């Protein structure tokens, strides 16, 4: 995996009443959720709304005695579904998911480095665009440090399908990017 799982103290039996625990969870997961939603193509405002909505839903879920297991994948799933509702289809949006950002290349890079980085980024952009939606989502969630089981819970697909999808997606990237 591209990163270790977030060190969350789960389950969270007192989330519904303990403000410190709620704040910690919000601080831990807010940015990963915003990144993922931005990766899906949501605008900044939409992503903010979806994240706040997801945490409100979590509060209600736990206050109503809902399951306290797998909170991270629960939040990602709610956010993912809200994002789906926000956008009829990713293809109809003005901004494509994972738009490339060449400005992110360091301004201290030499012109040669800049050209090389830009070329790599262009190849990756083409490779990412060639991926199916599910392949792209699996890779984004994997990059956020989610386990295959958690990715399966978010996308509501079996873990074995996640393994196959990640495998296929990585091999496509290798092929298209000449790694």
């Amino acid at each position, binding site marked *: *995996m*591209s*990163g270790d799982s977030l060190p969350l103290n789960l389950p969270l039996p007192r*989330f*519904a*009443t303990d*403000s410190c625990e*709620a*704040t910690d969870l*919000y*601080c831990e997961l*807010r*940015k990963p959720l*915003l*990144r*993922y*939603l*931005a*990766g899906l193509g*949501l*605008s*900044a*405002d939409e*992503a*903010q*709304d979806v994240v*706040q909505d997801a*945490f*409100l839903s*979590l*509060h209600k879920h736990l206050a109503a005695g809902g399951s306290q297991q797998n909170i991270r994948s629960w939040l990602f799933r709610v956010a993912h579904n809200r994002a789906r509702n926000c956008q009829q289809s990713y293809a109809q949006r003005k901004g494509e998911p*994972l*738009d*490339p*950002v060449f*400005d*992110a290349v360091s301004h201290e890079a030499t012109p040669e480095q800049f050209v090389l980085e830009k070329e*790599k*980024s262009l190849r*990756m*952009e083409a490779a*990412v665009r060639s991926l199916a939606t599910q392949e792209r989502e699996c*890779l*984004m969630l*994997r*990059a956020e440090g989610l*386990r*295959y089981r958690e990715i399966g819970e978010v996308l509501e697909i079996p873990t074995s399908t996640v*393994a196959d999808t*990640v*495998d296929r997606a*990585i*091999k496509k*990237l*290798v092929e298209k*990017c000449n*790694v």
Partner: protein
Amino acid sequence: MCDFRGPLIAWMDGELAETEAAAVERHVQGCTECRDRVASYEEAGSRFATYYSQATQATPAANLSSQTMPRWLPWAAVAAAVVLIAMALLPRPAKQSPAVVPAVAVAPPPATEIDSNPARQVQPVARRHIAPRRKPRSTEWALAQPAIQIAIPADAVFPPGAVPEGISYIANLSLASDGSVQGVRLQP
């Protein structure tokens, strides 16, 4: 050419059961070709992670500090301000000339007396609670009685999930003789 079809990427990700992972590891250790494959998969995964990070960092949403004020908070503040302004603009009790007020009127009358006097009644919609009467320091303050308290629900002040149980904020309003607001004080 190696024809090993084991799940190298799942093995890299630590997603295999112990026995299966051990079998893949044994093979990879002895196969240069599969080691190269693993290296290229890792490189592709790493490049994707960099690309994903750069693409999403450009989105203001992902760059916002965790200290950013929740978007609903200004609306809660506006709602609180509307309540306070509404209190100040409520129909005021009839103005009483100090000349016609008898000396005994300086002392606060009993609550039942206030309730029975329509001219001094405050609209029940806005008043949630009448503060206990305190000994007036002057005639003006005696006429400004009673103070009015407005309960503000804690969930209008705290983000969802961070609401301390059983806490509300109280706005103490003091009215002058002409019905205008003399002072506002917030307290938990």
